[in-house]
Structures are given as C-alpha cells and as structure tokens.
C-alpha cells in the first residue's frame, strides 16, 4: 500500500477563486492510500516545495499528488522536489485543477466538485505507480555519413571540426556528388568546382574524416549511440594507399569505350579511370565490365605502366565493420528517366538532352571543353528550347512522373538560358514554363534579369511534341497568353527532368528502420520543428534525400544535421525516457503484432528458454523492447492481443483506475 501525500495549490486566487481548496484537501484525505493532505498558497514556491519535502520525510510518503496547474507547467518542478527529498520522481502525479478546472468554471460548487474528482483520479493512479529509472546507454563517439555529395561533405566537415571522427561512405569512386558535375551555380554564377573542390580537399585532409569511396552500407544493427554497421568496400583493383593518381594507366588503357558516367554518357572513358581531375580520393578504379584483363585475362597493360605498382587484379570486395553513435543519410538525388516521355523524342534524337547533360556540355571540363555544341553533329545550335516541369507536378501517371515540384528547375533553367545568351548572343532561347517559381534570396531578380537583360523568351505554356526532321527538331508548343500554337524549328531541346531520390535510399531506409514517404524521400521527425532528424533516434537527414533542395538549402540542412549529431556525440551516456513499453514475457505469445505497429523498430523478437510447470524447459519466441529506442507512444500496448505489452507510467491498470475514479 502506498503512503500518499496530497498537496493542493491555491495558485493565489487562480485556483482558490473558483475551487474551495480546503474542501478539496479535506475530501482527498479519506481516499485510499492517502496519509497526508494539505493546501498552500503557492506550491511551486520555495516554501511550498519545502512543505512537500518535509511531508515526504515526516510521513514516509511513497507517492505524491499535487493538485495544481497543468503538468506541462510544473510537473518537472515537483518531480525534482520529490527527487531532492529522496522519492522517485515518477511517483509524482499532477491533478490539473487550474487550466482544466478553475479557469474554465465560474461557479465555486462545480469547480470544487470537479477538482475533487480530478484529485481522486490522480490518487487512484499514484496508488498503482511504481518507481521508474531511466535507462542509460553509452555513446560511441563516431558518426557515419552515407553519401559524399555536398550534403554529406558539409555534414562530415562540421562534425569533424567539432572533434568527432566521421566516416563517409560513397558508392562512386569519388566524393563530390551532383555538385561536382555542375558548371555554374545560381544565383551568383560562381563556378561549382571552384567552391566545391576546396571542400573536397578539406575532407581528404581532415584528420577526423575517413572516406570509404566505391563502398556501400550493407547492414545496420543496433540503436542510437550504438549502431553496428557493415560497409562493403567494392574491389577497385587498385591499391588505394599505393596509387598516386598520376593517371598514366588511364592514358595507356587500350579499352576506351566505356560510357563516361561523369559526363552523363556523352563521351567515353577508359576501363581504368579517375572520374575527374579533382576527384577525392584521387585514385584510379578499374571497371570490371570493360577491363579486358578482368574479363578474359588478356591485357595487363595498366599493371605494366604503373610505376607505383598499385594495380591488383586479384582484389576482392572487403567488408568493414564499425561502430557508430549516429548515422546521417545524405544519399541525394538523380534526374528521372526520360524513357516514358516519347513526346519529347529523348530517345530518338541526340539533340534532346536533360538539363544535367546540358550542364556537362557547358562545363569547361565536359565532353566539349565547355563549347556549346550539338551532341549529334558538333554544330553550334542557334535555336534552343528549354522545357520546364518535365515529369515534375505530374499527377497523371506514377510511372511517368512525380507529383511534387522539383524546386530547382526554374532557377537552373534561368541560369542555362542566361548563360547561353551571354556566351552566344546569336542564339534564340525559348523557355516554356507553367509557373516560374523563384522563392529564394535574389532568385526572382535573377530570373527577371534573364528576361529583361538577356532577352530570353519566356513563354507561358507547355511543349506538346518534339519531332526530329532532318537535322532540326520541330517543337510544337502552346503559347497560352497569345492563345496560339507555336511551331519552332529548334537545334537543341533541353528537358528540365524532375529529380527523384537515389535508388539506394529505399533499401537504406529499411536497414535504418527510418520511414519514407510514397516518393521515397526520407520522412523527418516533425515537418516543421524537427526537420533534420528521422523519427528513428540517432538517424539524421541531410540534403535532397529528405526532399528537393538547392545547394544553399542543402548546405544549411547539412550543417543543421551536423549540429544534431554533435549534440548527440557530446554526451557520454544517453538517458532514456523511462516511460517505455515493457513486455511480460510469460504472457507474450510471439505473434509480432507489436513489432509491426512500432514506428521506431524498437521491438525485436528473441528466442528464450522458459521453465515449464512440469520441470521441462521450452524455447519460446517473445517480444523484447529496446528501451533506448522506444519513445513510449503505446501503439504496441493496444496491438498486443494477449495483453503482455504495457507502458511504464501509463499502465493499463493506471489508466483504468483513472477511468473508474472519474466515472464513479
């Protein structure tokens, strides 16, 4: 039996004005378990807290009910008071007789009656309270960043600068991501490589950062502060620590017909390659799909010319196991496939390209060394048509496009149009738009400059059809403001393809038990207030894997994610919320219902040995809650058909007791 003390607060006249506090403390005296009951002007004041502390000592109280303001105001205060007097803080319950009683009722009689019932409910609950101790778990002071684009780079740099070791895992042979492929960046038009490559070098040289390039995460176990991760380092057939990045092998390689991914397949690269001059790590990689030596053992030229002796045809995939305290997903995006858009003739003509391909065409390090030339015949295009929203805002067919706005296309199209007119003033540039969306610092000014100063023809309407005729592209489009159908003879058509999350994101989310939306973007813990955290504790989100973003937004989110990771790694121990789910193993029938509803993946099943009544032992499958991961929502308690699952602090019996007290 508990020994409960009841403390009724007047809150000056806030409560005492409509509730007879004397009557309340008197009425609660006779409740089961109550051994002491009093009232005071301000319970939260130092004098009020002393009353509570003294009563705990004097009456050997095991539980406390404070009838006062909302627990959202002072529950923490009174829990501290109890703890200071040696009582478990979770033996304190608050009856909310201010916000939910005295302030909404004008009549003393009704206010008092309701306050007594609320007090009784709290007493009934405390009678069933049990002391709770928050669990503690250690924190591995190392972070994992998955993805080495600008988002992953920024997150890793910020965490590393705070003094914590960071590993970056990147599937490609180099970090840099999509930003490394870009030419200029809006709205300031500084060159992407000029601002990105110094950061890549910083990453390479940072003592706290390790880069696992050409690698991928294959398994994630554990929980916040204690993740166990397996990383597969794919065989690149080049010893990373020996290769000097001189590039002789790439020059001598006789097999030069592999499509160059970095240039969006618009030119070819050798079978042994370094993606681009500023690659980090600057190490060659052999493509096993094209290397003659690896395919049929006939060549071996690269090994002969390599003075460092870095080539190793026998290299195998390697699995690295490492522990991490926090994981950041920064898996980025890709443009969607244009295969379903027959009307734009993307697969029929080389001169219909996507914006990312256009980006490579205008990049000084690209296939044309920065000269804007048609991919088909290398001629200079005189009429260029840009089509926006190709696959974005497309609700008609899920296989074709995406329902969301890809956010970055309006600005990069304005950039492409402006730069084209700047370099080649003899070119006619048309941009077909549905809406021009330019919310962002200096964004609309940038777009207007493209129109007003550079004379880009912005036409409200959409392109309906592109048909190759000879060496021209016939573009049929509508001009909605003129209410005309246009027929433009173009040399080059550029499609602003929608962007979608990288394909690796979905399996990664499954490994991390992080939730995703229907578009395969990672879901944030709260759309407004916790935008860089995943609902799964210890998993953070950086960049476009969470939603379409431009570079400034990506970098700010990357730094925000880093700040959250630093906050986590700075702790030596994680104190959990003790109000977590708990399974009674003797009642659990191993049905997995709870596991399926848990939004955090906190419940796993284990095979346990039990002693049976007849002295035999039996192995049974039972639920086990990871208290470090459980957030205490209670969804599992209701899903459990056998009633084995219960929630500490809000036990079935406690809530039932409250119901009983209220309905009495």
């Amino acid at each position: 039996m508990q020994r409960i003390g009841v403390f009724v607060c007047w809150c000056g006249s806030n409560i005492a004005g409509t509730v007879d506090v004397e009557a309340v403390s008197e009425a609660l005296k006779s409740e089961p378990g109550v051994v002491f009951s009093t009232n005071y002007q301000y319970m939260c004041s130092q004098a009020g807290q002393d009353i509570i502390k003294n009563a705990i000592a004097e009456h050997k109280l095991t539980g406390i009910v404070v009838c006062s303001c909302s627990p959202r105001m002072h529950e923490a205060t009174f829990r501290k008071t109890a703890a200071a007097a040696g009582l478990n803080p979770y033996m304190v319950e608050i009856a909310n007789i201010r916000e939910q009683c005295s302030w909404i009722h004008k009549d003393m009689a009704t206010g008092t009656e309701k306050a007594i019932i609320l007090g009784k409910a709290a007493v009934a609950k405390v009678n069933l309270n049990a002391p709770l101790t928050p669990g503690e778990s250690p924190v591995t002071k190392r972070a994992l960043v998955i993805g080495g684009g600008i988002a992953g780079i920024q997150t890793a740099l910020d965490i590393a600068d705070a003094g914590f070791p960071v590993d970056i895992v990147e599937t490609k042979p180099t970090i840099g991501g999509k930003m490394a492929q870009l030419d200029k960046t809006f709205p300031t038009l500084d060159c992407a490589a000029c601002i990105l490559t110094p950061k890549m070098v910083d990453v390479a040289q940072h003592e706290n950062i390790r880069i696992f390039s050409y690698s991928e995460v294959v398994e994630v176990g554990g929980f916040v502060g204690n993740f166990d991760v397996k990383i597969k380092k794919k065989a690149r057939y080049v010893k990373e620590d020996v290769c000097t990045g001189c590039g002789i092998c790439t020059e001598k390689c006789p097999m030069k017909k592999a499509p160059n991914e970095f240039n969006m397949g618009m030119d070819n690269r050798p079978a042994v390659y370094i993606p681009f001059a500023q690659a980090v790590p600057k190490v060659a990689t052999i493509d096993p799909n094209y290397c003659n030596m690896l395919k049929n053992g006939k060549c071996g030229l690269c090994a002969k010319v390599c003075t460092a002796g870095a080539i190793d045809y026998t290299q195998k995939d390697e699995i690295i196991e490492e522990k991490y305290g926090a994981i950041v997903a920064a898996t980025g995006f890709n443009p969607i496939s244009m295969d379903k858009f027959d009307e734009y003739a993307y697969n029929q003509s080389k001169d219909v390209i996507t914006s990312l391909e256009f980006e490579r065409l205008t990049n000084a390090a690209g296939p044309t060394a920065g000269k804007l030339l048609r991919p088909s015949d290398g001629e200079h295009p005189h009429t260029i048509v840009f089509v926006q929203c190709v696959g974005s805002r497309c609700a008609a067919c899920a296989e074709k496009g995406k329902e969301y706005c890809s956010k970055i296309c309006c600005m990069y199209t304005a950039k492409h149009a402006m730069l084209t007119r700047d370099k080649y003033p003899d070119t006619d540039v048309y941009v077909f738009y549905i809406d021009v969306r330019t919310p962002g610092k200096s964004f609309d000014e940038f777009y207007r400059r493209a129109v007003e100063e550079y004379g880009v023809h912005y036409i409200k309407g959409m392109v309906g059809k592109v048909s190759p005729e000879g060496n021209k592209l016939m573009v049929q489009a509508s001009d909605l403001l003129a209410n005309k159908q246009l027929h433009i003879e173009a040399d080059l058509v550029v499609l602003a393809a929608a962007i979608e999350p990288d394909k690796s994101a979905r399996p990664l989310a499954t490994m991390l038990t992080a939730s995703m939306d229907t578009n395969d973007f990672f879901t944030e813990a709260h759309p407004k207030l916790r935008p860089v955290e995943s609902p799964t504790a210890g998993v953070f989100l950086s960049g476009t894997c969470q939603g379409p973003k431009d570079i400034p937004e990506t970098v700010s989110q990357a730094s925000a994610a880093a700040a959250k990771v630093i906050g986590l790694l700075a702790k030596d121990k994680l104190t959990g919320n003790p109000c977590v789910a708990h399974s009674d193993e003797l009642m659990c029938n191993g049905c997995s219902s709870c596991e399926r509803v848990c939004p955090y993946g906190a419940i796993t099943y284990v095979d346990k040995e039990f002693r049976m009544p007849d002295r035999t032992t039996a192995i049974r499958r039972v639920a086990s809650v990871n208290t470090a991961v459980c957030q205490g929502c209670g969804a599992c308690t209701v899903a459990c058909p056998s009633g084995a699952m219960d929630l500490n602090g809000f036990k079935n019996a406690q809530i039932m007791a409250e119901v009983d007290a209220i309905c009495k």
Partner: protein
Amino acid sequence: MQVNNGYQPKIVAFCCNWCSYAGADLAGNNRLAYPENVKIIKVPCSCRVNPMFILRAFQRGADGVILCGCHPGDCHYTSGNYYTRRRMALLFSMLNFLGIEKERTRVEWVSAAEGAKFAATMNEFCETVAALGENKRLEDLRCKR
C-alpha cells in the same frame, strides 16, 4: 451544464500529451468555458487508448467518450493517430451495434494551438450526449455502489 431536468452526462476525454492536452490547457488559459462534466485523462499518444478503457468507461457509467489527438500527419510519434483512427472506426461501429449510439463516441483532432476548437468541441459533444440521455446499455449495475 444542465439539460433534461438537471441530467448531467459523464464524459471521459482522452487527450494526447503533445497536441490535445496542450490544446485543452490553451482553452483554460483563454478562459474558454466548457462543461465541467468533461474530465480529461492524459495519455502519451491517442494510440495508447486501448478499446478496453472505453468499454470500461461505459461499464462504469460514462455517457460519452471522446478521444483527442494530433492532426493526421502531425503525430509526435509519426503514425500513432492513424492507428487510433482505424481502431476507433472499428470499435465505434461495434459499440453502435451494441446500442451505444455512435454520437456518444468520437475521435477529434485538436492541435496545441486549437484551444477554441477544444472548448467548442467539448461544448457541442456534451450537448449531443446530453440530448441522448443516460447510457444504460453497457452500464454494469454491479459497479454502482
């Protein structure tokens, strides 16, 4: 509140800790009156409410039960309120079959900013339940002392 010759319905309101309980507090802060017959029980999430609690309330003589949670998509625990919505749709239709009119049970989304909505909802719910009169269908007379 007195309707039907002084008859006062007993109403149990389950409020989630993050949105609706805060919404109820806000109603108090703004001194928005609603009937004293409404007594609030705090739960971490609306999905903590076991159908058992609702049956118990009716068994013990409650006349109406209302569940308040975060708006869909705003749940502190991501998906708890979706579970609530599905579970209660089933429970309420079963209760309706048993003779507990569906007006006596309700799920309402109240955010922490919607003090006015909380008070208005409670006023309206109380009136609806009062008009239906006392719940005798599930009440267990053995529970009366």
